[in-house]
C-alpha cells in the first residue's frame, strides 16, 4: 500500500456539500485540497509529545512495589503490592492506569526508567526549559523541535500544538510550530476569518510586528487545514475502530480533546510531523494520592483509545507517542501526604512501532542524590532516539553536541 492510497478519504456523511471537499466526488487527497502536497511524499512517521506539567511523581506511576525501601519511605502514600497492576516481579502500574496496562500487555508501551540529566534543577521552569530545549548546561532560546524546524526549513504545519500558548518546545529561531485552538468564541455574522487574511501579509515593520502578521497568516493556513481534516474520515481500515476519546466540558483544552484533534489530522493525512499536547496539575505537594489518581485516570482514558486507534489504521501505524514530565518527586513523602520536587523519573514511549518493555537501569531507592532518585538514562538519549527513528534526523545536530546512545525502543 503506497502513501497515496493511504491518504484517500471518503467524505464524512453530511458534509458532501462542503465546498472544496465536494470537488472530485468520492475520494480526495487532503494534501492536494490544501495545496500542501509535494512531489516527493514526505515521511508518514509522526511524533506526538505529551507533556505532563508540574513534575509527575514517577514512583506512583511505575511503582516499585516489591522494594521495602519504597514502602517505608512513603507512609500513607505508598501502594501495596496487591493494589498495583503488575508488570513484573518488581514493578507495577498505578491502579488508575488499566488502559496503559493493556498497551503494555500488547507490547506497545515502553517504559524508560530513571530518566533525567546531570545536576538536576528543581525549579519547574528551569527544568521544563531543559527538557524542552535539550540543553541542561545553559539556557538557549529554542526548543529541540523548534531547532529541527529551523534546520529543515519546515512549513508552519510541520509541528502543531493544540494548547492556547505555544510551548517553548516548538519555538525555533526562524521557524515555529502552529498553535491551533479549536474551541472558543463565535464570530458575529458581519465578520469572518477571511476578513483577517490581508493583515497577514508582509510589510516593512519590526520583527515582533512581523511575527504578529505571520501568526495571522499561519492561523488562516492551519485553521483551514485542521478544520478540513475534521470533516473527513478514512476510507479504509476496520469498522471497529476504537472510539475517539470523549471531549468533556472545557473542549479541546482537555488532553482527550487535544488528542481527538491529533487523530483527525493523522487520519486525514495532514502533513504534520510533530504534535504537542499537554496535561497540567502534577505539582502534588499535598494530598497527592487523590489528585494524582484523578490525573492518571484522565491520562489513561485519553491516551489508551488514542494509541489503540493508531494501531488499527494505516495512517496511524507510524505514529509514536512520548510522555514526559519536568522531574519526578522526592523519594520520601512529606508530612502532607504529598511529595516535593525531585529529579529522575520514568518516560513512556508508546505506539504501534514500539517494542514494549522496561528500558534503562532501574533506579535505586537507597543510593540517593540528596533524597532524590539518580538518573540512569539521560533524557537526550530518549530524544535522540526519537529524532533519529521518527523524525529521521541526525540527533547530534539537535542535541547541542551531546553524543546520544540509541535506545532499542523502535
Amino acid at each position: 500500500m503506497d502513501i497515496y492510497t493511504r491518504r484517500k478519504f471518503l467524505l464524512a456523511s453530511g458534509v458532501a456539500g462542503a465546498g472544496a471537499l465536494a470537488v472530485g466526488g468520492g475520494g480526495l487527497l487532503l494534501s492536494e485540497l490544501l495545496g500542501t502536497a509535494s512531489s516527493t511524499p514526505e515521511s508518514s512517521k509522526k511524533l506526538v509529545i505529551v507533556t505532563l506539567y508540574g513534575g509527575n511523581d514517577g514512583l506512583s506511576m511505575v511503582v516499585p512495589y516489591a522494594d521495602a525501601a519504597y514502602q517505608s519511605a512513603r507512609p500513607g502514600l505508598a501502594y501495596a503490592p496487591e493494589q498495583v497492576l503488575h508488570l513484573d516481579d518488581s514493578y507495577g502500574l498505578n491502579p488508575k492506569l488499566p488502559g496503559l496496562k493493556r498497551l503494555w500487555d500488547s507490547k506497545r508501551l515502553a517504559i524508560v526508567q530513571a530518566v533525567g540529566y546531570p545536576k538536576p534543577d528543581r525549579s519547574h521552569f528551569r527544568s521544563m526549559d531543559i527538557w524542552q530545549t535539550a540543553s541542561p548546561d545553559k539556557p538557549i532560546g529554542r526548543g529541540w523541535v523548534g531547532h529541527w524546524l529551523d534546520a529543515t526549513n519546515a512549513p508552519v504545519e510541520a509541528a502543531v500544538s493544540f494548547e492556547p500558548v505555544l510551548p517553548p518546545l516548538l519555538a525555533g529561531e526562524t521557524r515555529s510550530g502552529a498553535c491551533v485552538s479549536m474551541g472558543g468564541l463565535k464570530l458575529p455574522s458581519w465578520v469572518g476569518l477571511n476578513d483577517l487574511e490581508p493583515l497577514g501579509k508582509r510589510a516593512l515593520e519590526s520583527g515582533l510586528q512581523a511575527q504578529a502578521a505571520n501568526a495571522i497568516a499561519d492561523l488562516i493556513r492551519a485553521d483551514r487545514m485542521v478544520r478540513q481534516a475534521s470533516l473527513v474520515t478514512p476510507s479504509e481500515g476496520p469498522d471497529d475502530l476504537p472510539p475517539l476519546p470523549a471531549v468533556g466540558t472545557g473542549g479541546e483544552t482537555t488532553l482527550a480533546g487535544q488528542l481527538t484533534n491529533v487523530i483527525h489530522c493523522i487520519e486525514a493525512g495532514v502533513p504534520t510531523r510533530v504534535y504537542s499536547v499537554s496535561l497540567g496539575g502534577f505539582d502534588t505537594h499535598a494530598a497527592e494520592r487523590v489528585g494524582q489518581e484523578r490525573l492518571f485516570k484522565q491520562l489513561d482514558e485519553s491516551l489508551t483509545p488514542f494509541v489503540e486507534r493508531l494501531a488499527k489504521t494505516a495512517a496511524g501505524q507510524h505514529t509514536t507517542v512520548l510522555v514526559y514530565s519536568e522531574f519526578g518527586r522526592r523519594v520520601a513523602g512529606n508530612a502532607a501526604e504529598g511529595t516535593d520536587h525531585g529529579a529522575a523519573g520514568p518516560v513512556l514511549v508508546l505506539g504501534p512501532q514500539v517494542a514494549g518493555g522496561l528500558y534503562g537501569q532501574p533506579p535505586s531507592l537507597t543510593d540517593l542524590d540528596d533524597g532524590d532518585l539518580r538518573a540512569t538514562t539521560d533524557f537526550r538519549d530518549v530524544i535522540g532516539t526519537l529524532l533519529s527513528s521518527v523524525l529521521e534526523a541526525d540527533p547530534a545536530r539537535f542535541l547541542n553536541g551531546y553524543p546520544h546512545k540509541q535506545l532499542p525502543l523502535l
Partner: protein
Amino acid sequence: MAASVALLLRRAGFGPTSAELSDAIGRGYSATVSELTTPTARDPGAQSTPLPNLGIDPYNDLPNPTKEQRAAADVKRGADTEALHRWWLDRVTVANRQAVEKLVFFWHGHWATSIRKFGSPQWMLAQHQKIRESADFGAMARKMVTDPALVYWLDGQLNSKDAPNENLGRELLELFMLGIGNYTESDVKAAGRALTGWRVDLGVPQTAIFFRDSHDAAEKTVLGVTSKFTATSLVDFLATQPACPRFIASRLWFRYASAEVPIPPVTQDRMIAAFPFPNLMLKALFTDEAFQATAGHLVKQPIEWFVGALRQLGIRPAGFSSTVLQEMLFGLRSLGQMPFAPPSVGGWPSGAAWLTPATAQVRFALAARLAEMARPPKLTVEGLADTLAVDTWTDRTYAALKGVSEPRRMMTLGLVSPEYLVT
C-alpha cells in the same frame, strides 16, 4: 515628541484614549513622567469604583460541609469571584491614574498567585489590597510572605519544623526577590526553615497565623549569614542583598520596556538607585534614553490589550451582564491571561509567546465582540489610528483598512492589527 509621549502612555498604563494622549502631548514628556510617577493626585475614576466588600468566605467555619452547604457555598463563591473580576476590570478601565493601576497589575504578575488553587476571592482581594497599600518593595515583601493566598498557593501552611516544605522558600529566592543564580540549594532549604510555622484561615484573609510550636527557631545560614531567621527577618535580609534591586529593576524593564532586549547596565544602575520605591524606579526608566529605544520591542499582554480596547472604545465592564462578563473572561482565559489566575508561580509569558496563531484567533473573536458592543461611528483610517493611539499604519494595514466600509469590521481589524499589538 507625539510618538514618544504615546509610547510612554501605552507602556505606563493600559492604553490611552485620544483625549488623554493629546492632553499629555500638551504638557510635554517630562511633566507627564512626573505626573505618572507621583501617584498622589486625586483620581475621580478610582474613587467612583471603590474596592468591593465581599463579606466573609462562605466556607469559613464549615470544616465538614454537607452536600447542600457545599453547593450553596460554591454559588456564593462564584458570585463573589465574578464581583471581583467585574470590579477590577472596571477599575482599571475608568481609573484616571493609569500608572498606579498598571503597577498593581505588574505586582500581581510578579507575586503570581492563582485563585484556582484555593478558590477564595476574599483571599485574592486581600492580597490585592496589600499590593496596593505597600509604600515600597520591602514593605510589600514583608506583607506578602505572610499573605494567606500566597502562603497557601506555595504550600507554606504545610511547612513546619518537623516536616519542612521548601516551596515558598524556593520561589521567594528564585522568582520574587533575588532571581535564579543568586543562591544555592542550601539557601533554599534554610529559607524554607525560616518560613515554618505559618498557617491560614479562610476567615482571616488579612494575614496568615503564626504557630510558635511549629516554627523552627534554630539558627539558619542564608547566603553566608547565620541568624535565627524568621519570615520577616528573612525578607528584610533578602531585600538588603545587592541581587534584590538588580532583580526587581530587570523585572520592571522586562514588562515596561522589552522582554527581548536585556536591560542595559547603565539603566539598571539608575533604577537600582531608586530602590525600594517602584514608582521612582519607573521614573528612572521612563527618563532613560534606553526606554524610547525599545519602541516596537514589547508585545501587549492580553489583559493590557483588552483593557486598552475597553478604554479607547468607551466600554465599561460595570455595565456587562453576567453572560457578557463570563464571555469576556472566557476570551481572556483562552488568550492565556485570566486575571487573578496566572498559569503558574512563574507568572504570565511574554513577547512572541502571545503572537501565536491560536491567540490571533481568540483575539479576533474578542475584538469583534467589543466592536459590536461599541457600535463605533464611521471612521477614516486616520481616525481609527487616533482612537487606538497607533502612531502609523504600515502600507499593508492601511490598504487592508481602506477597503472596509462596515465600521465594526474596521474597528475589529484595527484591534487585531500587528501595529496595535506591538508597542
